[in-house]
């Protein structure tokens, strides 16, 4: 889906916007402005933004906000959201308590 991002592209300065305090990631309470600032710090992928400021790392695991985070990053980079990769899908699909992981059992015929 994605092409290599041209990291040398000039995306301009961070310019404050009136809706910068709009919550994008509901779980971790990350605002649009925080995501935009992260892009200007050089975080140009979903994964980088997630690792720096945590959108998508809360209880819902990005189920609600991923699309919006992608949209905000893409807009800041002046590219189409389709050019950005989704967050890596890795187990577990849903938040799981550590204790449950400890309870691994064999299924039987």
């Amino acid at each position, binding site marked *: 889906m994605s092409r290599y991002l041209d990291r040398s592209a000039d995306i301009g300065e961070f310019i404050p916007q009136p809706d910068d305090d709009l919550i994008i990631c*509901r779980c971790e*309470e990350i605002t649009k402005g925080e995501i935009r600032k992260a892009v200007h710090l050089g975080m140009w992928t979903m994964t980088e933004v997630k690792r720096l400021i945590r959108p998508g790392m809360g*209880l*819902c695991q990005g189920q*609600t906000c991923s699309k919006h985070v992608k949209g905000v990053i893409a807009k800041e980079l002046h590219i189409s959201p389709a050019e950005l990769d989704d967050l890596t899908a890795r187990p577990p699909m849903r938040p799981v308590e550590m204790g449950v992981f400890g309870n691994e059992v064999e299924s039987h015929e």
Partner: protein
Amino acid sequence: MRIKEHPIIGEIKKGRLVKFTFDGNEMEGYEGEPIAAALKAAGVMVHRHTSKLDRPRGIFCAIGRCTDCVMVVNGKPNTRTCVTALEEGMNVQTQYGVKAKEADEA
């Protein structure tokens, strides 16, 4: 508000009426329905206050995905009330951050 009679579904099948507590106050709901449904029927909108900005949250997706409706249930925080069945005598508390408010703090 509960729907008493529905033009298509007719009467909505429910379990028996049971008592539970919400922040120490006794409430009634139907056994087996989601805790969130019982709270909604009783007019409770706020399920928790967020950790960072202390903002109120309530039901949002109602199918266990968004995790906005989590509360402290029987002492266990982050319980998704929209998919957790109500049981008699349950202790349901508003969640502040990741815990219930201590009695002496309230």
